[in-house]
């Protein structure tokens, strides 16, 4: 698989890469939503999951979220540490409790339920 750094675990640098996306809140103040997306390289499913997540967050959590992207190909040890089996896996680290959604998040309604994101 390609090692081309399409995804970067450092969320701050994602701003440059994602054109048109609203920049997440600056790192200085901790956003209330901390999401971790575990992917494996740039598989279509991973790309799709990221863009779907991005859309949801931008729409409902604008300015209140941070997406941490973890490429397990580059950091395989994190798979065990975070108990990842399926890819892609979205982990809602914050707010508590931890929630997990697996899949490419193509079903937006279900993704909202899975993330426990209550839309007003």
């Amino acid at each position, binding site marked *: 698989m390609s090692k081309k750094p399409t995804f970067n675990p450092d969320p701050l640098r994602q701003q440059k890469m994602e054109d048109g996306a609203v920049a997440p809140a600056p790192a200085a103040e901790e956003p209330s939503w901390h999401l971790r997306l*575990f992917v*494996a390289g740039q*598989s279509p*499913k991973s790309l*799709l*999951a990221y863009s*779907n997540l991005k859309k949801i967050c931008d729409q409902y959590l604008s300015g209140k979220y941070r997406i941490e992207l973890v490429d*397990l*190909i580059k950091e*395989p*040890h994190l*798979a*065990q540490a975070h*108990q*990842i*089996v*399926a*890819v*892609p*896996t979205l982990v809602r680290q914050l707010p508590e409790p*931890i*929630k*997990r*959604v*697996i*899949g*490419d*998040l*193509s*079903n937006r309604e*279900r*993704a909202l*339920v*899975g993330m426990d994101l209550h839309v007003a």
Partner: protein
Amino acid sequence: MTSRKPLKTSGPAFRKALTGISGFDEITHGGLPAGRPTLICGSAGCGKSLFGAEFLVKGIRDYDEPGVLVSFEETPVDIVQNVASLGYDLTDLIKRKKLAIDHVVIDRQQIDENGEFDLEGLFIRLAYAVDSVGAKRVVLDTIESLFSGFDNQAILRSELRRLFGWLKERGLTTIITAERGDGQLTRQGLEEYVSDCVVLLDHRVSGQVSTRRLRIVKYRGSTHGTNEFPFLIDEDGISVLPITTAAMDYQVSDGRVSSGIEELDDMLDGGYYVGSSILLSGTAGTGKSTVAAHLADATCKAKKRCLYFSFEESPHQIIRNTGTIGLDLGGHVKKGLLEFHSARPTAFGLEMHLVQMHKKIEQFKPDLVVVDPISNLRHNSEDGESSEMLIRLIDFLRSRGITAFLISLTGGGSALETSGEDLSSIVDTWMLLRDVESYGERNRILYILKSRGMPHSNQLREFVISSDGIHLVKAYLGSKGVLTGSARLAQEGREQIEASALIAQEQMQVLRIRQRQRALEAQMEALRAEQLASKEEMDRIESSRSERSDLEAASLNAMGRNRTRSAKSKS
């Protein structure tokens, strides 16, 4: 115990990986298919996980093949503890980077499925673990847990197929465990994906004794034992019977071992052969154990080691009982030459007994093994099975040059000259003890039915147990058969009387002859005197006769002279 060299396989491309599990490598002719996945299925508690753990630990320890254990059920702490009870220190292996344990937790409550996914995460974890220790062996225990973790079974199945393909591609010898399903080998039909080797473990209860069994359902490209093989789990892990394959090319010895009974040694032309197997069968209370105790005593006195398996009496009981006939088995125990192992035959199945016996024999390294009685073991097994196993035990002992003394209790109803376990054709020496009822008594008789390769007595001997041990008394043969007990004593008494009468008669005869001799001598004396007297008389006659003739001659001379003188005067 097991041969470590890899056995011949069907082709050069087909390699096998020894599991190190005793007995298993024998029935598979070399272990599991190397670099391929094997499915181990069975119901709960049949030992699947342990099989996997032992495969990894022995792989590391004996064949220097590091391993990875991916556990879907047990936590690493649990696994380490469970395996520690078998004497394996997993933490040390992990520390030495020989073993990696990855516990995969799938919490259904936390996970929501949404759209397409794959199990690349699992692949990455597995690859990471494999690379971290350079693993050659992998155990996935129990991968079926995935099925309860994910809704999308179609994805799961295709991912599992991919996983097994991936394992094969990487040349990892893998064990995949799975639960037994209804009507099929595994609940999720995993046998469909793992086509190389499928092993079925089973746990059955028969006659209130549970037996574990193992069967190789399928082993592509290899011959294998197709039977169900009993196996058991004890403090040393899994042992599959047969532990050793029965071979007939053992060495034999010309040496003799004393039976501890002088008369019996005579009957056997010097005792049993070293390393031979001896069967002693007889009905209850005929003194079988006592004969065994004598042999044990004699063996220990000769500074040899004896292992005594007792399935009826406790060691203390045996020591006390044999003490009353003058054998000090307790002293031999103290010296470490004799070891007793008592167990209730019903405590566990025959397989377990045999494996335990194997182990004790391996540990103690005896010169003699006594099994008292072997017939009790068969109650716990199905017919036919027991004899096969006992034959294996005998073969095992023979191959080690260990003398085996087996006691078989013949039931009251069954024919005497049968050994319940059909061992008679296998054993080298077969002796029989039986009761003879006569004159209101019950007496014991011992005889040798067969004894290979030695001249042996064809006599029935009466068998007497006294305070100084066993004696075999020469039996008297009367018109009604062998005389034993008081009949024999009566016969002995009769013979004694007859003998003393004979002696008296002889003495009388001697006396008479002496008298006659004395009379003859007296007669001879008288005759000699008579002869002397007659000789003297004869002499006397002789001398008087010569005197007379002298006188006559003298008178003639005188007459002559007279005549001459007268003539002169005339002229």
